[in-house]
């Protein structure tokens, strides 16, 4: 029986954890089997959950979130027969598969879309908290914007510094309004539950928004430009499908293998022009071949396109 461990945000965060849950759910539906899951409440439970599941014979054990790296590093060796999958971080151990996503690439593409959809030439980014992962999103996004429109302005804001920053839609709304007043007419939210407020306000105020992680286009049909998809669901689905035979090692989910991308569906089809599609297709292809390299904030803790 495989197991899935959600990060502190909880499994229904409408983005990252929920995507992981969706993957597991899909696997369960397709195979008719069941899996174990737990939503963490505290830091100390990371190691605890890993050990408990491993001892109970769960295999493989998938954990969603970079914060597990440290705990997994401690635990993996104690359970050599159990396979672990960690998402968003690399842990070097023989029985661990590390799945990382090129969020900057996906963000780059939605950045291009944002720049093209923007009439004002000013686009916004709202992150949950000022942490490296969110900067990675923001940096890729800013590069994409600049690639599509070198004159465009990117306003990047962070919601806060306490855990409440991920669950404060009211603040998300106000940031959105502030960005609108500064001229932004497309905003990209990478802020968990706070993003709900961003998308809502964007819809209320008649500008476009961009969702994150899961496909959030349906939240406000016709008003969400697109969603930067981070196919955590696929990563989980694959891990569960591979089962105990799962291959360990390093796995990068990028544009080239469909690990990141953006969502187009009935809800936003009318917003994405052919020109946009063409441009992003082209960029995607070039990124895949390496012709364009999107700067990864994590590679050197800096961002040429945006200052923090």
């Amino acid at each position: 029986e495989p197991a899935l461990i959600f990060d502190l945000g909880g499994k229904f965060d409408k983005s990252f954890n929920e995507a992981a849950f969706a993957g597991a759910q899909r696997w369960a539906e397709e195979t008719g089997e069941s899996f174990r899951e737990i939503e963490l409440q505290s830091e100390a439970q990371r190691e605890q959950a890993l050990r408990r599941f491993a001892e109970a014979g769960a295999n493989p054990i998938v954990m969603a979130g970079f914060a597990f790296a440290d705990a997994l590093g401690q635990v993996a060796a104690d359970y050599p027969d159990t396979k672990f999958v960690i998402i968003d971080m690399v842990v070097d151990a023989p029985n661990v598969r590390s799945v990382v996503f090129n969020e900057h690439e996906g963000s780059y593409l939605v950045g291009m879309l944002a720049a093209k959809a923007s009439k004002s030439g000013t686009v916004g980014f709202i992150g949950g908290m000022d942490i490296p992962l969110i900067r990675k999103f923001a940096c890729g996004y800013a590069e994409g914007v600049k690639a599509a429109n070198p004159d465009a302005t990117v306003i990047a804001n962070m919601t806060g510094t306490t855990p409440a920053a991920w669950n404060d839609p009211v603040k998300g709304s106000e940031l959105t309004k502030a960005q609108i007043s500064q001229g932004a007419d497309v905003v990209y939210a990478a802020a968990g539950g706070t993003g709900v407020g961003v998308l809502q306000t964007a819809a209320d105020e008649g500008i476009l928004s961009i969702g994150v992680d899961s496909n959030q286009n349906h939240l406000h049909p016709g008003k969400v430009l697109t969603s930067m998809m981070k196919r955590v669901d696929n990563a989980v689905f694959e891990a569960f499908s591979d089962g105990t035979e799962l291959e360990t090692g390093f796995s990068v989910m990028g544009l080239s293998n469909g690990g990141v991308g953006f969502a187009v569906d009935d809800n936003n089809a009318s917003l994405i022009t052919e020109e946009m599609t063409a441009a992003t297709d082209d960029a995607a292809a070039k990124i895949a071949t390496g012709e364009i390299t999107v700067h990864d904030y994590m590679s050197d803790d800096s961002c040429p396109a945006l200052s923090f």
Partner: protein
Amino acid sequence: MDFLTLIQVLDSTVRLATPLLLACLAGLFSERAGIFDIGLEGKMLMAAFFSAAVAATTGNVWLGLLAGIASSLVLSGLHGLASITFRGNQLISGVAINFLAAGMTVLIAQDWFQQGGRTPSLFSGGRFEPINLPFADALANVPVLGPIYSELLSGHSVLVYLAFLAVPATAWVLFGTRFGLRLRAVGENPAAVDTAGVSVVGLRYAAVMICGLLCGIAGAYLATALQAGFVKDMTAGRGFIALAALIFAKWRPWHALGACLLFGLLQAVALRFQNIEIGTFVIPVQMMDALPYILTVVILAGFVGKAVPPKAGGEPYVKER
């Protein structure tokens, strides 16, 4: 900062200050009657959930508002039971209510909607829409006054206007009516009220219930006017800020308005000007995040001085031990 930006910041101030103001006045009634309430946060949260849940299921925001108020009143009743009837510790009761609301909202939301502790998004009818004051559009182009009227004063939901009206109303109730006189007296010296032949218990329950009512409106405002649905923990500490504002205001209604507007303004400014560069030095975003709190401390230390709470506050009224 140009004029339009100023208007926008002030507009944002109004929105951010409204829930604080309602909660602050709520606390004012309760604490003026001698019942300390650190459960404002919980009551707001509970009301936010129930207003959104009922608005989502019925499609009627007014029913939502009522449900929000009712749920907040239930928690107030609990606080009253603990701190008035059973003369328990008011701080503990408040803490318990905060926990209770944080847990129950998600638990019930999950049970009802299976959306991970959220309510479905509210569509029109289920939300309080902005009200455009008469001639707002026509006057928008008048210099200076136009934007002030059409941007700043117009275009808020009815609950915002209600909240601001609640300030003179509170001042009038407290200082202009018999009820207010007794309420203030019971917070200062319940024995005086008791020996004057007025029920201490009755007065205190009334105060606590008004507190619940206002917290209910505050919560409903968050979930059905500012937002379009409930997200867990969406009050995000506003109840505590409201409490701080209350102390800041020294338990006075007009001062409460000032304090809440100040807190709202500080937050609005911090949100609007997140990336300030001074020469080559970029003020870190964390600094801007913390700015409202730092300034609060500075103002408190520099100008406000000592705040003396209602004398009988926090102490249960015990005649016989």
